């Protein structure tokens, strides 16, 4: 659905995007992570045929971004970094305006606006709709909207024409937790629809980890890492880190016993406390049962054995700080 090969964009002497190669299949979410100015927005702008690549090529929904810009834009829903709404228009007028530009027939347009507004909880349901002088939220001027509401309107604008490709730049920024949850659920539902390919640019790493099938990390215009999250973690953060907790403070010789047992599996103790020991192992499926067996045989009371969660943040920092 999105195929990028050697995509490059230079502004005079500044190379904003440098030889980027990516693929996003239908039904897949790719999170594009990177520090500010890394080239995320420029990449997204090229994929939505707003900017022309200096070199390389990209096909979006089957169309070439350099030569079939109109067709690309017809098939892409782009959520820009800033909502960029027209403050003197009402929410309904604004969405209707974009629906008209997309040439969606009037009855479908109105129906779609109402449905999406209801989905994003902008229009109160009929039973709870305010009466009297209170206006429907969608009929209020956009200048009166909160940041979160504005972001929701921008999201509806993006989904209005039901595009097969979505490019979402910070979709949950400025949203309260409940709204952000709603948007994440929406993205998850859109992902589950097998026809859609989604690129998600975000600084919210837990969100990326939750939603994305794959992560691409961009630094100074270049993709420095690209893989599924577990594979990235394994590659950048090394073997899995396990923690064993004992029921009682450790007796003398426990650490030595653990060290001796796991040494044969290429694992090693990293740290130890009064009633816990951490060790790294390249193959937990083999190391852990063997260790447990040895400890139980020695009469050690094991309370838990679990993997220490290594965050995507650690992966990200490792990648963008140039250690890879």
């Amino acid at each position, binding site marked *: 659905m999105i195929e990028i090969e050697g995509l490059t964009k230079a*502004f*005079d002497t500044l190379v904003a995007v440098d030889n980027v190669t990516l693929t996003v299949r239908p039904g897949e979410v790719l999170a594009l992570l990177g520090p500010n100015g890394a080239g995320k927005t420029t990449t997204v*702008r090229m994929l*939505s*045929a*707003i*900017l*022309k690549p200096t070199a390389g090529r990209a096909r979006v929904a089957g169309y070439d971004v350099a030569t079939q810009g*109109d067709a690309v*834009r*017809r098939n*892409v829903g*782009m959520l*820009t*970094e*800033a909502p*960029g*709404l*027209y*403050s*003197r*228009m009402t929410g309904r*007028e604004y969405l209707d*305006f*974009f629906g*008209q*530009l*997309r*040439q*969606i*027939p009037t009855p*479908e347009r109105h129906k*779609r606006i109402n*449905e*999406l507004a*209801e*989905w994003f909880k902008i229009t109160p349901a009929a039973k709870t709709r305010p009466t009297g002088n209170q206006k429907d939220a969608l009929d209020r001027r956009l200048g009166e909207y909160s940041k979160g509401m504005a972001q929701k309107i*921008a999201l509806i*604008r993006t*989904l*209005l*024409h*039901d595009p097969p490709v979505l490019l979402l730049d910070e979709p949950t920024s400025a949203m309260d937790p409940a709204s952000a949850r709603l948007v994440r659920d*929406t993205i998850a*539902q*859109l992902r589950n*629809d097998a026809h859609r390919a989604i690129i998600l640019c975000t600084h919210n790493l837990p969100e990326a980890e939750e939603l994305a099938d794959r992560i691409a990390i961009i630094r100074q215009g270049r993709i420095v890492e690209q893989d599924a999250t577990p594979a990235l973690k394994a590659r950048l953060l090394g073997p899995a880190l396990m923690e064993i907790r004992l029921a009682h403070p450790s007796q003398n010789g426990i650490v030595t016993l653990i060290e001796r047992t796991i040494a044969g599996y290429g694992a090693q103790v990293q740290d130890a406390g009064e009633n816990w020991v951490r060790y790294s192992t390249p193959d937990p499926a083999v190391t852990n049962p063997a260790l447990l067996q040895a400890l139980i045989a020695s009469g050690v009371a094991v309370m838990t054995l679990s993997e220490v969660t290594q965050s995507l943040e650690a992966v990200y920092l490792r990648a963008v700080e140039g250690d890879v």
Partner: protein
Amino acid sequence: MNIEARITSTPAAPTRFSAIWQRMHSAWWPAWVIFRREIRDTLRDWRIVLPIVILVVGFPFLANFAANRGLTFVNQYGASLIIERLLPSLMLVVGFFPSSFSLVIALETFAGEKERRSLESLLATPLTDLQLYVGKLLAATTPPVLASYVGIGSYLLLIGFTLDWWPPLSLLLVSMTLSTVQSLVMVSGAVIVSSQSTSVRAANLLASFIIIPMAFVLQAEASLLLFADYTVLWLIALCMVVVNVLLIRLGTHVFNREQLLGRDIDELNLQHAWQVFWEAAWPHHGLKALYTREIPAIIRGMRPELLITVLVILVGGMIVGVWGIQRFPLPAEAFDLSQVQNLETIGSIVSQSGLLTSFSPWAIFYNNARALLVAGGAALISLGILALLLLMAPVAIIVYVVGQIGGIGINPWLFLAVTVLPHGIVELPAAILATAQAMRMGDVMLAPPEEGGGVDGILRESGRFIKLFMGAVIPLLLIAAWIEARITPHLLLNFLGR
């Protein structure tokens, strides 16, 4: 609830008419949608609506009041003609004030959109650049122009009922045409200004490049109305249309997705500017390369401008010169060749004419080099037009003088061969080269290159102008000046002196 859309339509088999209509509709519908949105937005902004309403409603009353008082005053001295000539001028002013708001609206419409960061979502739709440009251009022009018509109408009704003065139809038409084309010029200028700025504030600063020339134009128009010369007003309207076409051409070029979002040119990078200029101006590869590669390359690159320059100066110069001969014939005494007795008298005749400080090679060279440098500067502010006109003028003068000489019994070809040809054969190519490159500098403003955009393009072409000027034009002008001062007078004495 399903967030999947179910957008379906079953198109009927199109007839030929409906197919054409469909094509027209899909081509212009987006522009119409943009137009409607912009108009609605403008009418909801009291900062724009209120001043326009005040100008449309209040200013005609003020102008009417001033006209009435003025008429009462001048009637005491029997000078009613003054105020009668002033009434059309006031009509123009009444029409201009609301139409000047087109500039404000355009700056808000284009630069405001960039500043509010709403442009990107618009550019992500299937709109073409032209549809967006046309929609916004019309939206910025329509309300002020309509307000201008209403203002003119109100003023005319008031003047008609109070002073019983009704303008001739031709005056009314020219006034309304001027209001319309002036608004369009301001809007199309504002598009260019907006494309070079990322904020309304920066655009407003640059807008003085539009409003100041327009104010001068308005004053010129008002003065011409005092002389009741409507023909010149139509010519001004025609010039405005030409300027408009050029500005719209430039506007459609700079108003594209790439330039609107791809560049941030509010910051002045003097070092980069100097580098671009210096790279183009300095002969980095030595003198031999300058004459064998660099100057020939510049000349090859400006072939269209060379062709246009030669055609315009020769054809235009001939037409203007011949028109001058017919319109302003000189008496035979104007060409008293008996005064041409020796080299000293030739020198004193030239000095007395005021054209040169002295009849020396340096004075001639300085005069010619200065004129061509001015042409280069003028090209930058006139999209190349003034450079052409400046070179056309001497050609027209030569045609005029040679034509007059023929009328008093002197062989015009001999006169041409003796007084113009020896130095002209060197001087004219130098002038054509400089003018063509000056035109190219203007062309770059109309069609900025992909690489670096308009500013870099102008700097690069200015650098090439300097390189061409130093490497080719100055040597040729020096040779021509020496011939003109040292050889031409001898030829004049030998062939035409008495």
